[in-house]
């Protein structure tokens, strides 16, 4: 039982990172119907900014983190305005490919700032562990869960109660009608990128706790893909559930597969989110919380 709880908490901790990333993907998808492959670059950018603000500008972690989120959001705005906005009206496939180009270009620049080594984000948790009864957990996992819970709650409140949030939901539902109601769809696009950028920065920073970030940290951004497919491409709640599910499944498979299913080979945990995704898609082709599309033929 102790093992199970330890695996569950570490899974939820890492899953929180995936959830933040997945929510960013979904927000952009809902507004633009495009999967943005630039999220990994924004993830690394945010974490690098935290690192520089912490160690080169001497800021406290709790100041550096929100500041880096704002700066990354601004970068995302610039990317959206320069590279994406002019592509409105083009096939979504083309736009998605452009986001891949943006991702590579941004990462090449950011890699210069990372340098040859690993950069630390200067988090306050370090190697600290907490003992909850017999369960030993890394403190950072508890913080990851807490921060994600707060941020996601704020996002839900924003979408539900704020005028801008309602405008974003309206534009996601039907752009033409939203336009007719005086909603600036262009601003919705921009805001969705900014929010996704800030979330990616937060996720990247949390991922950089303990071991730091290096030129390969961006790969983590791809873990959000099974999460969004699992949860449903157009569901923010689904992205959160998908992200947490991916984290927990990875942790559980990593903990128990060797003992119970050794014939699956080592490191099956890394494949497990995709297996879960396939199973869910066979039962619910639009993901757990996705909207089924009805097409008449």
């Amino acid at each position, binding site marked *: 039982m102790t093992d199970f709880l330890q695996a569950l908490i570490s899974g939820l901790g890492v899953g929180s990172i995936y959830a933040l990333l997945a929510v960013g993907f979904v927000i952009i998808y809902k507004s633009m119907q495009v999967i943005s492959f630039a999220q990994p670059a924004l993830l690394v950018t945010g974490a690098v900014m935290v690192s520089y603000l912490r160690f080169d500008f001497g800021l406290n972690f709790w100041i550096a983190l929100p500041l880096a989120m704002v700066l990354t959001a601004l970068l995302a705005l610039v990317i959206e305005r320069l590279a994406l906005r002019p592509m409105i009206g083009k096939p979504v496939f083309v736009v998605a490919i452009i986001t891949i180009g943006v991702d590579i270009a941004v990462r*090449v620049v950011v890699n210069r700032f990372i340098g040859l*080594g690993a950069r630390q984000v200067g988090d306050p948790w370090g190697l600290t562990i907490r003992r909850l009864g017999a369960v030993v957990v890394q403190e950072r996992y508890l913080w990851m869960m807490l921060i994600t819970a707060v941020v996601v709650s704020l996002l839900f409140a924003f979408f539900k109660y704020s005028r801008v949030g309602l405008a974003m939901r309206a534009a996601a539902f039907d752009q033409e009608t939203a336009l007719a109601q005086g909603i600036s769809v262009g601003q919705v696009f921009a805001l969705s990128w900014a929010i996704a950028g800030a979330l990616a920065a937060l996720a990247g920073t949390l991922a950089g706790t303990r071991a730091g970030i290096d030129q390969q940290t961006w790969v983590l951004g791809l873990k959000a893909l099974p999460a969004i497919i699992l949860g449903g491409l157009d569901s923010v709640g689904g992205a959160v559930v998908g992200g947490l599910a991916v984290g927990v499944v990875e942790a559980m498979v990593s903990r128990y597969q060797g003992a119970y299913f050794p014939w699956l080979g080592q490191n099956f945990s890394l494949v497990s989110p995709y297996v879960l995704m396939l199973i869910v898609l066979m039962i619910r082709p639009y993901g757990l919380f996705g909207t089924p599309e009805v097409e008449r033929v």
Partner: protein
Amino acid sequence: MRKFPHRPRWAVLLVALALVLSACRDTGGGTATDDGTETAGATEGATAGGGEVQTDVGVTEEACPNAVNSDNGCIYLGIISDLTEGPFAALAVPITDAQKAFWKRVNEEGGIGGYDVDVESYIKDNKYNPEVHNQVYQEIKPEVLALAQTLGSPTTAAIIEDLKAENIVAAPASWTSAWEFEEVILESGTNYCIESMNAIDHAQRNISEDISVMAVGLPGDYGGDAAKGAEVAAEELGLDFSSVETTPGPENQAEAVGQIVQNNPDIVILTTAPTDAAAVIGGAAAEGYQGKFYGTSPTWNPALLESPAADAIKALYLQTAPWEPFGTDTPGHEAMREAIGDVEPNDGYTSGWVWSYPLKAALEAAAEAGDLTRAGIAQAASELETVDYEGMLPEEAGRFGGDPSETVYREIVVAEPDENEPTGVKVIEEFFASDVAQNYEMSGPCFTG
């Protein structure tokens, strides 16, 4: 993205330009793309340095672009490395920069047999992808005499048959035992397999005779070679042995940490990337593990001493390496530091520099014999009995050709973390080889996939 009318396209062009620039990224001190220099495809009987020298591919009587010695001819060497987005870019860029500096120094000292050596015209990025590696190799093959660098073992495996067929000699940027069996590959230092045998010997002498050993490493020849070496040594010495294969990424190390804490081995032979190593060592230490980690040189990065795991690393980590680190006082290390100038110290530079010596020796021997053809270089390389590494490795480490059991170099150094050193590690035991390593018969590569 469906409602607005068409907009100006300048931004699209901007993105395209950014992509092109990223593909043509400067690697720190030189260009990473071809400059279109033409070389003679097959010139027989070219004259250089006052004597008749036979040449074929990749050697011209015309001077190199930006030649140091404008009267010299030019030998073109290719470099295929992981320069932008692959997993080893952080190491590959300094490796490549060191090699540029190495060959520039060779030219400044007069070149080889009346020829300057150009390693900057044919630098290609393999993105650590075997397919890309082969593709860029095919592009530069008609233009180069040999390869000053072919980075990675799965990538080099994709071109090894062609290298052999064409007699193209290459300096590797990897330490797999498979290269002991390929005459066209001029490896330097020992391989991971022998290295981990020696690590176990060090642990036995410094911890206890009766130790338990766990190998934790990445899949493939890197982790696999080291794990096999550790297994061979453990079996030979009657020690408990277990092995855990892990995957790249700090957040993917929970299983490895769990196995280490659960099995509590006396030593762990670690073959991962640096941030993974920090996650494993920090994670295991936080859960109470107090054994020793012996990490291969790619597990190390001086930045680890700034991570939250720094205290654990200082207490538990030792590094095994095929040669001494960046700050060592040998003529070779000093020449390297002087040639590469003011850079952030990194042992990628050291490796790139060391790997270049055997190729230089082979070119010199071939030029001496008046045969700078590909076959002439391959012949000269296979006859090398010693290489002058300027003290960075013993001369006998440069023996190529013949039975791998006789030619493989078996000594390593062991270092410990020391933040006062340029690359954060200080050698605590100079070159040594264990009995197991010395007696191990290299009848085939340790890791066979």
